[in-house]
C-alpha cells in the first residue's frame, strides 16, 4: 500500500493492511514531528510533495523491497500539509515470516524514502520558518 494524504495517519489501518496469517513478524517505523530543531522550538512542519513523482518513486522502492527480501506485505504512507508537533508524518510497515527480513526491509524503505522521494519540509516556529536542508536527488550535468 502506497499512500500520500492530507489526513491524520491511522496506525490501525496500516496494521490491518499488513495482517497476514503467514507472517510471524511485523515491523513498523513511525516518524513524528519533534519539538527540537537547531533553529529553535518547532510548532509544526509544513510538508510539500511532488505527488506524481513521489508516488512513482515510492512504488519503485516497494518493488525493490519485495525483490531484496522475502516479505509478505508492505505499507508506506506519508502525510503532507501541516503536521503539528507530536503528530505522525510517516509510517512504514512490513510483514514477513521471520523478524530479520521485516527489520531490514523496513529500514531500507524509510532510508530510501528520505533520500529519494520528492517531499520537502518547512519548520514553522513562533517567529519565522525554515526549509529543512535535504538530500540532492543528484543529476549529472
Amino acid at each position, binding site marked *: 500500500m502506497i499512500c500520500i494524504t492530507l489526513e491524520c495517519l491511522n496506525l490501525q489501518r496500516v496494521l490491518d493492511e499488513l495482517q497476514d496469517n503467514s507472517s510471524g513478524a511485523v515491523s513498523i517505523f513511525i516518524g513524528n514531528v519533534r519539538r527540537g530543531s537547531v533553529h529553535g522550538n518547532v510548532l509544526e512542519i509544513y510538508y510539500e510533495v511532488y505527488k506524481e513523482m513521489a508516488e512513482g518513486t515510492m512504488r519503485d522502492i516497494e518493488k525493490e523491497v519485495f525483490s531484496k527480501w522475502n516479505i509478505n506485505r508492505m505499507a508506506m504512507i506519508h502525510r503532507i500539509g501541516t503536521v503539528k508537533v507530536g503528530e505522525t508524518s510517516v509510517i512504514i510497515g512490513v510483514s514477513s515470516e521471520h523478524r530479520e527480513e521485516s527489520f531490514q526491509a523496513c529500514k531500507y524503505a524509510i532510508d530510501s524514502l528520505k533520500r529519494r522521494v520528492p517531499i520537502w519540509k518547512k519548520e514553522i516556529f513562533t517567529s519565522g520558518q525554515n526549509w529543512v536542508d535535504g538530500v540532492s*536527488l543528484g543529476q549529472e*550535468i
Partner: protein
Amino acid sequence: MINVITAISDDQKIIVRMFAILREAVGKNEVVITLPRGSTVKTLKNKILQEHPSLNSFNGQFIISVNHEAVSGDTVVSTKDVIAALPPVSGG
C-alpha cells in the same frame, strides 16, 4: 521571410514547475523558459538561473526532472514533457 518564420518556430516555450524553497524564491508555481528546439536539461537549468537570479543562492543545488524522473543533463527537453525543478528532498 521564410528564414524569419523558421527562426521563430525553432524556439519552444518550456513550462517548469517549481517546488518548495525554489517556488518561494521565484514567487511562482511555474516559470516559462524559451529555448531552441533540441535543447538539453543542462541548457534549461542554465537559462533558468540566468532569468531568475534569486535561484543563484542555491548554488545549483536543484535538479530538473523530466516526466517525473531525475534524468541526466544531456537529456533533450520538449514542450510535451512534464518538467520540474526540485531542491534537495527532506521527507520523513
